């Protein structure tokens, strides 16, 4: 019997199996941000175990509330900053270089196919787009990761999602992600890894793939993975060329060794023809409450938010700006763009994307999680609603009493222009109703 990509990673990183089915894995990367790590540091100090297993494998960013909004968030940043300095953690990103962790760390070239990665953040599954096993964990797992470089997992089974066909006009990676969650439901992938396969994934760039793996957790998935291929290779090449002696063929062979075998066993296989998909948005407090935008009535919105680890990357801002060009946000709508990283911000500025968006009425904030989790930069008032390119629509997520509608950047811009939830094809000029 063949093995899946995740089974291969588990086998190659197994440190011990203290009980049948419990695998303690050696970790290649432990990522940290200022919300879940300071309390881990404080606990390690309290236990007299303030050490790190390998400073070169720890990547640190201040991203959730940056610049700090109050004394408490300033203290969190300070604890993390001082800890990173104390242990000479070189890969530490503070104001001026920072950005949302799951956009920043790939951009810096820290992810490799076959890696094991943990972070005290549920959307760590994003990095599976590179063919890595990347899982969100809590603070205690993070502590043990920092201290010993290991993490224990029940070996997950794999759900294979085959995506075929071609995306129609106005339909993006985000729509595919939401369709997968709709079909699997919010806990359909619990204790499973979702493997995204097929011609649709093959044609996608790394940013689109990350949009999809990012949301695996919204179906309960331990992680989401794609097979590392030529696209992965090109993205990583500036960081790995030397490692492979400038030999792309050799590198690709090494990547392909991680691929799931043809005869690997899957817990479930789901086939989706994306040609049939339409632009969608969530309506409700669960990410599987997905509806076609063309079928929604008049649902007013108060805010548009473009950003986050799901859809705050350069391609997302290009998509948003392309649609916003020459248009204005409805007077009843506030528009906020938070480029996911500092580099995304600068590049978007060079390309004139920010100018286009500002011309349309958007405000541009620095790179931060901000409103995605309702901590700063665009918190909603009770009974307000937001067309958001984020990944979570829980009750209170963007502010108590607020409603978040998840959708693609294009759909968010279209909704902002209309002042109500809107199929992006309406604004593109192709009337579909």
């Amino acid at each position, binding site marked *: 019997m063949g093995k899946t990509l995740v089974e291969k990673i588990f086998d190659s990183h197994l440190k011990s199996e203290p*009980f049948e089915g419990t695998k303690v894995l050696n970790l290649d990367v432990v990522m940290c941000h200022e919300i879940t790590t300071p309390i881990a540091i404080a606990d390690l100090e309290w236990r007299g175990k303030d050490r790190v297993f390998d400073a070169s494998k720890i990547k640190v960013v201040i991203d959730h509330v940056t610049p700090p909004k109050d004394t408490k968030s300033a203290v969190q940043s300070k604890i993390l900053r001082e800890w990173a300095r104390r242990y000479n953690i070189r890969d530490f990103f503070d104001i001026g270089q920072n950005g949302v962790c799951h956009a920043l760390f790939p951009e810096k070239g820290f992810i490799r196919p076959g890696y094991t990665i943990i972070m005290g953040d549920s959307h760590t599954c994003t990095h599976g787009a590179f063919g890595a096993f990347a899982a969100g964990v809590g603070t205690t797992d993070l502590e043990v990761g920092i201290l010993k470089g290991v993490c224990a997992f*029940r070996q997950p089974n794999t759900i294979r999602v085959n995506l075929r066909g071609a995306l129609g006009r106005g339909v993006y990676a985000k729509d595919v992600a939401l369709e997968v969650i709709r079909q699997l439901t919010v806990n359909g992938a619990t204790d499973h890894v979702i493997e995204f396969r097929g011609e649709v994934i093959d044609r996608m760039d790394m940013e689109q793939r990350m949009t999809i793996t990012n949301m695996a957790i919204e179906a309960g998935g331990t992680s989401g993975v794609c097979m590392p291929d030529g696209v992965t290779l090109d993205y990583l090449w500036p960081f790995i060329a030397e490692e492979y002696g400038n030999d792309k063929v050799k590198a690709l062979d090494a990547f392909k060794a991680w691929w799931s075998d043809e005869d690997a066993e899957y817990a479930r296989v789901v086939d989706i023809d994306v040609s049939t998909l339409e632009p969608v948005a969530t309506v409700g407090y669960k990410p599987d409450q997905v509806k076609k935008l063309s079928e929604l009535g008049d649902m007013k919105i108060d805010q548009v938010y473009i950003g986050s680890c799901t859809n705050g990357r350069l391609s997302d801002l290009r998509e948003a700006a392309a649609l916003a060009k020459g248009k204005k946000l409805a007077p009843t709508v506030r528009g906020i763009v938070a480029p996911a990283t500092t580099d995304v911000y600068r590049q978007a500025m060079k390309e004139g994307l920010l100018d286009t968006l500002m011309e349309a009425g958007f405000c541009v904030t620095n790179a931060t999680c901000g409103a995605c989790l309702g*901590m700063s930069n665009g918190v909603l008032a009770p009974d307000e609603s937001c067309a958001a390119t984020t990944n979570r629509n829980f009750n209170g997520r963007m502010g108590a009493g607020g409603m978040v509608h998840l959708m693609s950047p294009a759909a968010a811009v279209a909704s902002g222009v209309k002042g109500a939830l809107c199929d992006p094809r309406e604004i593109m000029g192709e009337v579909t109703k």
Partner: protein
Amino acid sequence: MKTFGGKVLFLDRSDINTDEIIPAKYLTEVKKDALGPHMLEDLSLDGFDPQSEKTKDASVIVTRANFGCGSSREHAPWALEVNGITVVIAINYARIFRQNMFNCGMLAIELEEAKIDALFAMANDDVGCAVDIENKELTFTTSAKTETVPFSIAPFDEALVRAGGWVEYADKNL
């Protein structure tokens, strides 16, 4: 090992997420105790009052499916812990929440749906729950009756609970 058992708080809904257990706005706290007053503050459940005596007196939560979904924040089990709740009983959990519970040396017990239904049938009464880890039994007591329900727990999770959590376990064994 922590102590387990006491009064039961019934939360009759599936998919209760960690934002509802402890909202993100309290994640700037770096002390667990500060989370205490905000446990379940944003829970959307008809008739539920996070500040009621019933909520404050509880040591055990009984709920439905996919409890603890969403964010990885361990602040969720901590918010329960500082309020004296060290046992959750549900049909199933989101993976990270379940692991966080055991990593803190707390119990995330899974019972099949019919058993959970039977527990909810008692919910109008005051219900107490005793936990016997040795024999893997839960004993529920109301004014009218006593009912014993067996449960199972994965060996690794039990080892974590007995060690007092994952840091303690990893220290001794890895």
